[in-house]
């Protein structure tokens, strides 16, 4: 029987994972630095990684993996642990739930996936903001940050998706999802 979640196996898998992690940290660093200078939010490559895992792992494990990716982002950022972890997990969850009932095809799929992931992430941020009774997220911040973040993430998605495919293998096709 064909494996429904074609994540590559063997020692090469860990090498690729290590290379991917280094590239993720480096690329996110470069983009963040450049975006800060330009005054716009950087594309969220950690979120795209969480989404990529969603396609390649069983759903429950995908959520855990996405949470782990977000936790890595918290670690690198030096902020409070759990904030981005929950955000990436929220993005992956929303994309996972909605995409179960939406056709899987080309550009529309990319747009929808990134849109859902960004929406899920920021909904989770909003929930945690409410939970903490903090003023981290304001309406002005949402207006000025989320649209450019969404556009930037959409723009880098096609390129980043190739790196993800090289690292984690091809994602599941529609026929595997039906099984």
């Amino acid at each position: 029987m064909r494996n429904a979640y074609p994540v590559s196996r063997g020692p090469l898998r860990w090498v690729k994972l290590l290379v991917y992690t280094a590239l993720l940290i480096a690329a996110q660093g470069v983009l963040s630095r450049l975006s800060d200078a330009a005054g716009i939010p950087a594309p969220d490559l950690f979120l795209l990684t969480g989404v990529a895992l969603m396609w390649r792992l069983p759903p429950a494990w995908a959520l855990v993996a996405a949470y782990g990716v977000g936790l890595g982002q918290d670690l690198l950022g030096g902020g409070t642990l759990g904030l981005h972890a929950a955000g990436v997990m929220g993005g992956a969850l929303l994309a996972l739930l909605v995409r179960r009932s939406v056709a899987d095809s080309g550009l529309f799929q990319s747009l929808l996936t990134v849109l859902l992931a960004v929406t899920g992430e920021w909904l989770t941020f909003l929930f945690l903001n409410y939970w903490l009774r903090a003023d981290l997220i304001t309406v002005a911040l949402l207006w000025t940050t989320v649209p450019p973040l969404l556009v930037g993430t959409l723009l880098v998605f096609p390129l980043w998706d190739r790196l993800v495919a090289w690292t984690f293998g091809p994602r599941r096709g529609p026929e595997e999802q039906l099984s």
Partner: protein
Amino acid sequence: MTEVRRLLLVSLGLLFLSMVTTRFQVVAPSALRAGTASITRASVVVADNIRRAYVTLLDERDLSREVGRLGRQNDVLRQQNELLRREVSRLKQVMNITTTQAPNALGIAQVIAVDPSPLLARLDLNMGSRDGVRLRMPVTVPAGLVGQITDVSEHSSTVVALVDPESSVGVTLQGNKGGRGLARGIPPDRLRAEFSRSVPIKVGDVLVTNSLGGVFPVGVRVGTVEKVLPLGPNDISRTVIVKPSVDVGVIEDVTLLEGL
């Protein structure tokens, strides 16, 4: 348990974990970031270099535009400078002529055409009757006499230069040395002047206009004696070849003097 319920359960569990860690402000020890410090440092350097390269590119583009703009402005200013320089030169010429030759200068005219014939020496000027130019007006430059106006239209006029075969001008020796002669043009670039035998003229003497004919102001330089032709037994006058003071082939601006 359905797939969706399992997903929600897992996500709620993870969300609860985040709620706890964010509530208690759990921060990871910085030592954990040390492993990736070199990567983040390199990425910052790369990003800064990219940004600087972009900024430099924009600056270069702006500088290139600025250089182009300044170059065009420089061209305009050079042109204006050239015009002003010419104007100053003309005014100096007028001042020079009014103080050394005649006080009644009409103005400065530009040579706009020359007669192509090697046997004639005629110039067309860009001033005509509309500008006050009249027949027989003397035309000079600071170096000396050029000729006189022989034809006038509304916008231009024609000068017959001293070396033209139809030109004749009364001359005398410079410095009140006496003598009164008549110089005629001999193409392409000399004059032939005749003096009475008694005039002690020699090579190198300078000839200036005299009052004969009442056309030219007295004392305007005409030329220098280049050669004294030998006297024949029956000659009643002494003939000399004169090199004119003004080379009509190179003059650009001339001054028109009111007639006497």
